[in-house]
C-alpha cells in the first residue's frame, strides 16, 4: 500500500544561512558590484529587503499617487508610448520627405531637430556654409516651418521641437498654423530644450541669452502657452543632456527635479496657479544600458515628483502630480566598433525605458557613433520599437517588474540617492545658484571621468572596445546621408532673396517692439517673439536682438 503523497517541504529552517554559506564558497572572488549611481548591488534580493508591507504608500496603483507604477491607470496596456523619432537634416524640403517616410513606417508624431546654427542663434547666411544642415534642418522663418510640415495635419499631430530660448521654432509653427487657418488652441506638442539650466550644465545646445534673461523668457513662454496654446507643453525639463555629459542616472534625475522645482517656483512667484502650469510640465531623460538602474531611476523619479508637486508646490489637481516623460536611448553607450552591436544595445535601453513607464520614446539609430544616422539605420530604430511592442508583448502588463524584490529595493535606494543629491543642490541655493557656481558642472565632469576610468581599466566592459574586439575592414560602411551642397546653396540663395524682398519697416517695427518688451519687466517677451515671427522676422534677427537686450550667455571653462 502506497503511503499518501506528502508535498515535500522545500524551504527548511536555516535555508538562508545555508545559501549564504554556499554562495560565498562558490562565488569565489566576488568583487563588490556597484551600479553607475554608486549603489552597491547584492547578489540576491528577498523579502528581507522588500516585503511589500508598505505597498499602498510606496507603490499604490497605476494612475494613483505616488505613481510609482505609472502615471495612468492603463499605462501601455491602454495606450502605448508615442513613437517619436528625432529627425532633422538638410533643407525643410529634405526634412519633410523624411518625416513623411517615418510616418509611413510607424512613427506617430513629429519631432524637429534644427541645424546647430539655429541652436547658436544664427540664420543660415551668418555662418559656415559647410556645416549647414549637416546635423539638423535649417529652419529660419515661418516660411521654412510651413514647408517642413507640409502635408502634416497640424490640428491632429503632436509636434516636438528642439527649440531653446527664445523659442522661435514654436513662434514659426504658430505663424504657419495661423496662415493655414489652424487655431492655436488645436496645436499640440512640446518645446524640447526649453530647459535653459541643462544647457548651461551640458553645453549641448547653446543658450543665446545670458541665464537671468533666459530664466525670465522661459517663464514668459510658459505663461503665454498656458493662455494661448493650451495643448502645448512649453517646458521639457531635460536630464538627458546631463547624463550624456557624464552625470550618473541618480545625478541626472536629481538635477532635473531640482531644475523643475526652480522653474515651478518662478511661475509661482509670477502669480501663476500651479494647477494651470504643472500639468504641462514634461521631462526628457536618457535611458542608458544600465537596465535595472534606469527602471529604478524612473520609478523613483515619479514618486519624488508626485510628492514635490503636491507638498512643496501646492498643486491640488492630480494631473499636476504626474511625471510625464520622453526617453531617448543613450548615444554614449553606442560604439563605433562593430556598429550592428548597437541594435542590441538600443533594444535593451528601450526595454528599460518601457519598463520605466515612459510616455514617448526615441530609439537611436545603430550608426550614431559613426555619423548622423542613415535612412536604413533610422528604420531599424523604428522597427525595434514595433518589435518590442507587438512581437515581444512588453505592453501586456502594467509595470511588470513592480514587486520584484530587487527592483523595489533598488527603486528605494535610488530614491534615497536622488534625494541626497537634491539636498546638496538645495543647500547650494537651488539649481540656478548651483549652476552659476559651477558645482553641477564639476560633479558631472567628475562622474564622466570616473566612468571613463572604469572603461579604460576594463572594470566596465564595452563589447568591441575593451573586450571581444574584432578586426574590421575600413570603408565598408553605407554612404552617409549628407545634404546636397547644391540644394543647400539654393535654399540659402532663396532665403537671402526672400529676406531682401520683405518690407523692412514691418521687420524693424516688430524687432523694436520685441526690444521694448525685453526692457519692460511687465511685458511678455515670448508674445513679441511670436508677433515678430508673424511679421516675417527671421530666427537670427530675433535672437540677435534679444542677445543685445538681455546679454550674451558665456560659458565657464570647467575641467
Amino acid at each position, binding site marked *: 500500500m502506497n503511503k499518501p503523497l506528502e508535498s515535500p517541504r522545500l524551504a527548511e529552517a536555516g535555508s538562508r544561512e545555508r545559501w549564504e554559506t554556499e554562495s560565498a564558497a562558490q562565488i569565489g572572488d566576488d568583487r563588490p558590484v556597484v551600479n553607475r549611481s554608486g549603489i552597491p548591488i547584492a547578489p540576491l534580493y528577498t523579502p528581507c529587503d522588500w516585503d511589500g508591507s508598505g505597498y499602498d504608500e510606496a507603490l499604490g496603483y497605476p494612475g494613483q499617487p505616488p505613481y510609482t507604477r505609472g502615471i495612468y491607470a492603463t499605462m501601455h496596456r491602454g495606450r502605448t508610448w508615442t513613437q517619436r523619432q528625432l529627425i532633422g537634416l538638410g533643407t525643410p524640403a529634405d526634412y519633410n520627405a523624411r518625416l513623411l517616410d517615418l510616418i509611413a513606417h510607424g512613427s506617430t508624431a513629429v519631432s524637429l531637430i534644427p541645424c546647430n546654427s539655429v541652436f547658436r542663434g544664427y540664420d543660415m547666411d551668418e555662418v559656415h556654409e559647410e556645416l549647414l544642415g549637416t546635423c539638423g534642418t535649417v529652419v529660419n522663418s515661418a516660411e521654412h516651418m510651413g514647408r517642413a510640415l507640409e502635408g502634416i495635419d497640424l490640428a491632429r499631430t503632436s509636434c516636438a521641437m528642439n527649440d531653446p530660448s527664445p523659442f522661435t521654432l514654436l513662434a514659426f509653427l504658430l505663424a504657419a498654423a495661423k496662415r493655414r487657418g489652424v487655431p492655436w488652441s488645436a496645436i499640440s506638442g512640446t518645446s524640447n530644450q526649453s530647459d535653459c539650466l541643462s544647457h548651461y550644465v551640458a553645453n549641448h545646445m547653446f543658450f543665446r541669452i545670458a541665464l537671468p534673461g533666459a530664466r525670465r523668457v522661459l517663464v514668459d513662454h510658459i505663461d503665454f502657452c498656458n493662455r494661448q496654446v493650451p495643448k502645448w507643453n512649453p517646458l521639457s525639463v531635460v536630464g538627458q543632456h546631463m547624463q550624456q555629459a557624464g552625470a550618473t542616472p541618480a545625478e541626472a534625475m536629481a538635477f532635473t527635479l531640482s531644475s523643475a522645482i526652480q522653474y515651478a517656483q518662478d511661475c509661482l512667484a509670477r502669480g501663476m496657479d500651479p494647477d494651470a502650469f504643472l500639468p504641462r510640465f514634461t521631462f526628457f531623460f536618457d535611458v542608458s544600458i544600465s537596465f535595472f538602474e534606469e527602471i529604478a531611476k524612473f520609478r523613483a523619479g515619479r514618486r519624488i515628483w508626485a510628492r514635490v508637486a503636491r507638498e512643496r508646490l501646492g498643486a491640488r489637481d492630480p494631473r499636476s502630480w504626474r511625471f510625464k516623460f520622453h526617453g531617448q536611448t543613450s548615444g554614449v553607450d553606442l560604439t*563605433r566598433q562593430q556598429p550592428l552591436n548597437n541594435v542590441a544595445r538600443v533594444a535593451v535601453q528601450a526595454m528599460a525605458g518601457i519598463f520605466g513607464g515612459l510616455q514617448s520614446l526615441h530609439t537611436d539609430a545603430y550608426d550614431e557613433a559613426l555619423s548622423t544616422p542613415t535612412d536604413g539605420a533610422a528604420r531599424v530604430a523604428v522597427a525595434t520599437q514595433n518589435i518590442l511592442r507587438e512581437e515581444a508583448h512588453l505592453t501586456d502588463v502594467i509595470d511588470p517588474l513592480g514587486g520584484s524584490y530587487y527592483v523595489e529595493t533598488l527603486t528605494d535606494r535610488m530614491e534615497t540617492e536622488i534625494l541626497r543629491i537634491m539636498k546638496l543642490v538645495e543647500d547650494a541655493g537651488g539649481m540656478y545658484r548651483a549652476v552659476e557656481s559651477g558645482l553641477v558642472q564639476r560633479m558631472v*565632469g567628475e562622474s564622466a571621468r570616473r566612468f571613463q576610468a572604469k572603461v579604460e581599466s576594463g572594470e566596465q566592459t564595452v563589447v568591441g572596445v575593451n573586450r571581444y574586439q574584432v578586426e574590421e575592414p575600413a570603408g565598408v560602411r553605407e554612404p*552617409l546621408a549628407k545634404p546636397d551642397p547644391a540644394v543647400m546653396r539654393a535654399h540659402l540663395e532663396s532665403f537671402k532673396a526672400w529676406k531682401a524682398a520683405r518690407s523692412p519697416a514691418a521687420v524693424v517695427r516688430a524687432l523694436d517692439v520685441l526690444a521694448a518688451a525685453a526692457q519692460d519687466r511687465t511685458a511678455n517677451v515670448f508674445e513679441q517673439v511670436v508677433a515678430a515671427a508673424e511679421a516675417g522676422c527671421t530666427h537670427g534677427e530675433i535672437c540677435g536682438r534679444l542677445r543685445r537686450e538681455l546679454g550674451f550667455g558665456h560659458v565657464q571653462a570647467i*575641467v
Partner: protein
Amino acid sequence: MTTEVPPKVLVTKIGFDGHDRGSRVVAAHLRDAGMEVIYTPPWQEIPAVVKLALEEDVDVIGISSLATDHLIVPKLMDALRAAGLGEVAVIVGGIVPDADEAMLLKSGVARVFHPGAALEEIAQYIRDVTPKVRASRATA
C-alpha cells in the same frame, strides 16, 4: 620617449556644437598625465584658436567634434599655416566618418581619434609627436 618640457596642448572645439564631454575628459587626462593643457569652452571661432595657439606657443591642438564641426577643420589648417603655425600638430577626436577622415588627413591633420580610443593612446601619441613638432619649429 620623454621630453624635458612637457607637451603644451590646446584642447578646444570649433563650430556650432557644444557636446564637451570628450574634450573635458581628454583635457583632464592630459593634465593629470603631466602636460600643460590650455582648455577652452566650445564654440571657439577659428581666428581665436589661431591667436591662442600663437600666444601660448602650443605643440599640439586637439579639436573635439561630436557633430559635424570637423568639416571646418581644413579652414583652421589654412588659418594656422597663414599664421606661420604650420608645424603645430593638429589632432581631431570624435565622430568622424571614414571619408571625412581621409579629407582631414589630406588637409594636414596629424591624426584622428575615434570613439573608443583610450585616453592613454591619445596621451602617448602627443608625447611622441611633440619632439617632432619642436624639431621642425627649430628648423623653420
